[in-house]
C-alpha cells in the first residue's frame, strides 16, 4: 500500500520517547494525495461527459467537462492545502488500567489558514473529524483499547483530509511515538499477609503509638474514615475546619505485598497486588511492595502508589 512509505517522518519521530513538544509539521514530504473513490467515480462521469461532447460535437459539453476537470485539479491543491502546514503535537497519555481505553492526546495547531474536516484516527476506518480555525488549535483524544498491562505504544496515526469536494483524499501517517502505561487490571481477592504484619491488620485496634514530635507530619484536611482520635480539636475551635494530625508511617504496621507469597499465575498475582495497592492507598495505609528483584516502600501516599503501580505494570518487561 502506498501509505506504507513513511519517509520523512521517521527521523523526526523517534519512537522511543514522546517528542511531543517539538511536534511535526505536515509538508510535502509526508503528505500523500490520490483521488478517493468518489473522485474515481467523478472521473468516470467526466469521461462519459467527454464522450458525449465528442460524439455530439458540442463545445458547451466540452466546456462543462473541462471546467469540472479543472475543478478537480484545483481541488487537489485545496485538499493538499487543507493538510499542509498543519502541526501535530503528541501529548503524553495518562496511565490506565488494563481493559480500559487508553487516551492519546494529540494537539493540532493550524497556521494562518483555517482547516476543515480534518480526520484523525489509527486507521482509515475509524476517524474523528475536527475543524480548526486560522491560527487556532484543538486538542484531540484518540482512544485505543488496552487489553494487557505494560507499555501500550500508540500505533501510527493517520491524518486525513477530503475537503472541500471529497474527490481527493490527502493523508499522512505519523508515528506519534506515544506510549501509555497500562497498569494490571485490579482483581479483588484475599491477600495472604506476610508474617509480622498480621497484628496490625484491623483498623480499630490500631494504636496511635509513637505520637512523638518526630513523627508528626503536620495537619491535613479531614477525610471520612479518619480516626477521631487524631482530629485537631484546637484548630477546629479556632474555626480552621476539621484537621487531622498526620503522622509518619509507623514502623512495623505496614502491609507487605509480596509477589512471591502469592499463588497463581503471574498475571493474576499482579492483578491481585494491583488491587491491594489501590485499596491500601485508598485507606492511606503504608505498605511495602515486594517484587522479585525490587522492593518499594515502606511508604504511603500518591507518589508511592504511582511507583508501585508502575512497577506492577512493567514487571517482567524490559522498559
Amino acid at each position, binding site marked *: 500500500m502506498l501509505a506504507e512509505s513513511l519517509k520523512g517522518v521517521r527521523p523526526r519521530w523517534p519512537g522511543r520517547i514522546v*517528542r*511531543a*513538544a*517539538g*511536534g511535526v509539521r505536515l509538508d510535502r514530504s509526508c503528505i500523500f494525495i490520490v483521488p478517493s473513490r468518489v473522485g474515481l467515480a467523478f472521473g468516470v462521469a467526466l469521461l462519459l461527459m467527454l464522450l458525449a461532447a465528442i460524439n455530439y460535437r458540442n463545445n458547451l459539453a466540452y466546456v462543462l467537462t473541462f471546467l469540472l476537470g479543472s475543478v478537480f485539479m484545483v481541488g487537489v491543491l485545496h485538499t493538499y492545502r487543507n493538510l499542509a502546514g498543519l502541526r501535530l*503535537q503528541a*501529548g*503524553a*497519555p*495518562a496511565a490506565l488500567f488494563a481493559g480500559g481505553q487508553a487516551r492519546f*492526546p494529540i*494537539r493540532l495547531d493550524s497556521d494562518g489558514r483555517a482547516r476543515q474536516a480534518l480526520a484523525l484516527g489509527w486507521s482509515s476506518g475509524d476517524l474523528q473529524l475536527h475543524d480548526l480555525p486560522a491560527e487556532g488549535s484543538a*486538542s484531540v483524544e484518540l482512544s485505543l483499547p488496552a487489553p494487557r498491562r505494560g507499555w501500550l505504544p500508540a500505533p501510527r496515526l493517520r491524518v486525513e483530509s477530503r475537503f472541500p469536494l471529497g474527490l481527493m483524499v490527502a493523508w499522512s501517517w505519523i508515528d506519534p511515538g506515544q506510549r501509555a502505561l497500562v497498569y494490571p487490571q485490579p482483581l479483588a481477592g484475599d491477600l495472604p499477609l506476610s508474617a509480622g504484619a498480621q497484628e496490625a491488620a484491623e483498623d480499630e485496634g490500631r494504636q496511635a503509638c509513637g505520637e512523638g*514530635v*518526630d513523627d*508528626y*507530619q*503536620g495537619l491535613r484536611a479531614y477525610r471520612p474514615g479518619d480516626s477521631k482520635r487524631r482530629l485537631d480539636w484546637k484548630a477546629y475551635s479556632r474555626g480552621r475546619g476539621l484537621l487531622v494530625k498526620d503522622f509518619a508511617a509507623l514502623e512495623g504496621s505496614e502491609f507487605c505485598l509480596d509477589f512471591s507469597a502469592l499463588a497463581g499465575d503471574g498475571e493474576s498475582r499482579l492483578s491481585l497486588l494491583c488491587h491491594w495497592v489501590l485499596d491500601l492507598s485508598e485507606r492511606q495505609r503504608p505498605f511495602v511492595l515486594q517484587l522479585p528483584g525490587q522492593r518499594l516502600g515502606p511508604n504511603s*501516599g*500518591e*507518589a508511592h502508589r*504511582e511507583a508501585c503501580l508502575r512497577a506492577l505494570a512493567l514487571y517482567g518487561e524490559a522498559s
Partner: protein
Amino acid sequence: MRARLESCLQSIDRVLLGKELQVRLALTCLLARGHLLLEDLPGMGKTTLSHALARVLGLGFQRIQFTADLLPGDILGTSVFDKESAQFVFHPGPIFCELILADEINRATPKSQSALLEAMEEGQVTIEGATRPLPSPFFVIATQNPVTQGGTFALPESQLDRFLMRLSLGYPARAAEKALLLAGSGRQRLPELEPVLDHAALAAIQAEIPRVRVSDALVDYVLRLVEATRSQPQFAWGLSPRGSLALLAAARAWAYLAGRDYVIPEDVQAVLPAVAGHRLRERADPAGQGGGTLVQWLLREVAAV
C-alpha cells in the same frame, strides 16, 4: 553602568564562594523588580547573600525573623499613644526598608505571611486606614526551609506566584567549602564590602530593563513554553499569564546583565528554572515541591528556534 554591575557581582562572589549562578540570578531578580524566595536548609548562606546584596547595592537592610508568634504588626508597625502630643504616633515596622530579609517565612502563621506578601505585591502598606508607601526600591528576600521540616506553614501556590524567582543555594562545591573552611565564614568579611551602586544608579538600571528588546520570534518561544505547560499532561497546571510576564521580565534583566539590549532564547532558558520551578507541579506528584524535572523537560523539548 554594566561594568559597575559586574563589579557588584564580583564583590558578592568574594563573600559567597562558588555560587556565581545563584548570585547572578538574585541580582537579575532584583533588577527585574521581583522578589526572591530562597529555599534551603539553614546555614547555606541565605543571610550572607541578602546582606551582601544590600551592602553592595547601597540599600538599607532589615531582617525579620519569622516565628510562629510573629504578628502582622511586628512586620508593618503599630501606632503607639504618645502622652506628650496626646495622640497616636505611628511607629513603622521593619518593612519600611529597602531590602528585607524575611527569614524562615514558613514558620510564621499564614496571617503574618500574608501581611508581608500583600505589602510586596502592592508596594504600600495600609495600617489603620492610612496608606503608607514603601521605599523604592523595595526588595524582599524570603527564605524558607524545605517543607519536610515540622511545624511550618508552607506557602500556598497563590503566594508562591508573587515571588519572581525561587532559588536554592545548595551545598557548596568542595573547593569552595575548603576555601570557606580555610579563610573563615564569608559573613565575617561582610563589613569589608563597599557599596558599588547608589539609589539613583539602581533606579536608572531598573528603568532601562523594560526597554530591552523582545522580538516576535522570542515571544513565540515564550508562548511555546507556556503552551507546553498548559497542554502537556504531565503538568498539573500550566503557567499563568503572570508567570509568562515574570519569565519575560527576568529574561530581560538577565540579557541586560549579560550586556545585550535584546533577549535571546538562552536568556529565557537561563532564568526558566528559577522563574518557573515554583510555579509548576507534576501531575503525578501534586504534593511535591517542584517542577525541577518539568523545567528540564521544557528546556529539552520545546523548540527554541
